[in-house]
């Protein structure tokens, strides 16, 4: 999985591309979220548009990232979910936990 970090105002955006699966993408996701939170980011968005597969380890890392951010007084939100990622979050009921937005604009605006 590839992770690209960028900044829109005071919002940090992580663009993910590829598989978030055990042994590869899950570790990269964990490291990317920890890096931005440790760097002081308090408004974090994850762009899921190009995520092709997410397994239970990947979901676990999303949950860990959410928990880490919340415990540090930051907010972590998701946007551009592919339908299969939405299905996974719905089945696991995590759709009720995460703030999810259809577009980057809406997601960024949610922090205003």
């Amino acid at each position, binding site marked *: 999985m590839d992770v690209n970090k960028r900044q829109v105002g005071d919002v940090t955006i992580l663009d993910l591309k590829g598989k978030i*699966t055990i*042994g590869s993408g899950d570790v990269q996701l964990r490291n990317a979220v920890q890096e931005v939170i440790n760097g002081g980011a308090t408004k974090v968005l994850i762009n899921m548009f190009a995520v092709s597969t997410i*397994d*239970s*380890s990947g979901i*676990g*890392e999303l949950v860990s990232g959410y928990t880490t951010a919340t415990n540090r007084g930051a907010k972590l939100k998701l946007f551009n979910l592919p339908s299969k990622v939405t299905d996974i979050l719905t089945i*696991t009921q*995590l759709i009720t936990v995460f703030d999810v937005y259809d577009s980057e604009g809406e997601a960024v605006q949610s922090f205003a």
Partner: protein
Amino acid sequence: MTEEYRFHLAIGSRFENIELVQVVLRDCLERLGMEEDTRHWVDVAVREALANAIKHGNEQNPSKQVHVDLAVEGSELVIQVEDEGVGFDPTHLNDPLAPENLLRPNGRGIFYMKSFMDDITYGSGPGGGTKVTLRKRVPGPKTDSSQEISGEE
């Protein structure tokens, strides 16, 4: 029931080997005429079975193997994943949907499998390791040829 299609794979206990199985599995599911969405969810379920076998069963010991058997029995796809670990008791599992477990980072693998397959059962292999059997109805095999594939990394 008549078996029209089957393969066997044995992989070393490394997560990157999951991708090897996925390549073979995807080809098989496509040839069986399974629609794209169903192929994706079977792929996800098998990925979880393999991850559990490598991580929990074989404890990522690369000298231990994970055995994968796939067969079509009538209108049912049957996939068995067996590790060389010490076995597993599936009766004591946390409910990942319970409010107190919702934010736990782990414990969703078997839930994934149950969600995306028609049936999963646990048993023991001849060596005492865990054998999980996943079943999914298929639209019907496109071919009646039998095929054996063996692979070891």
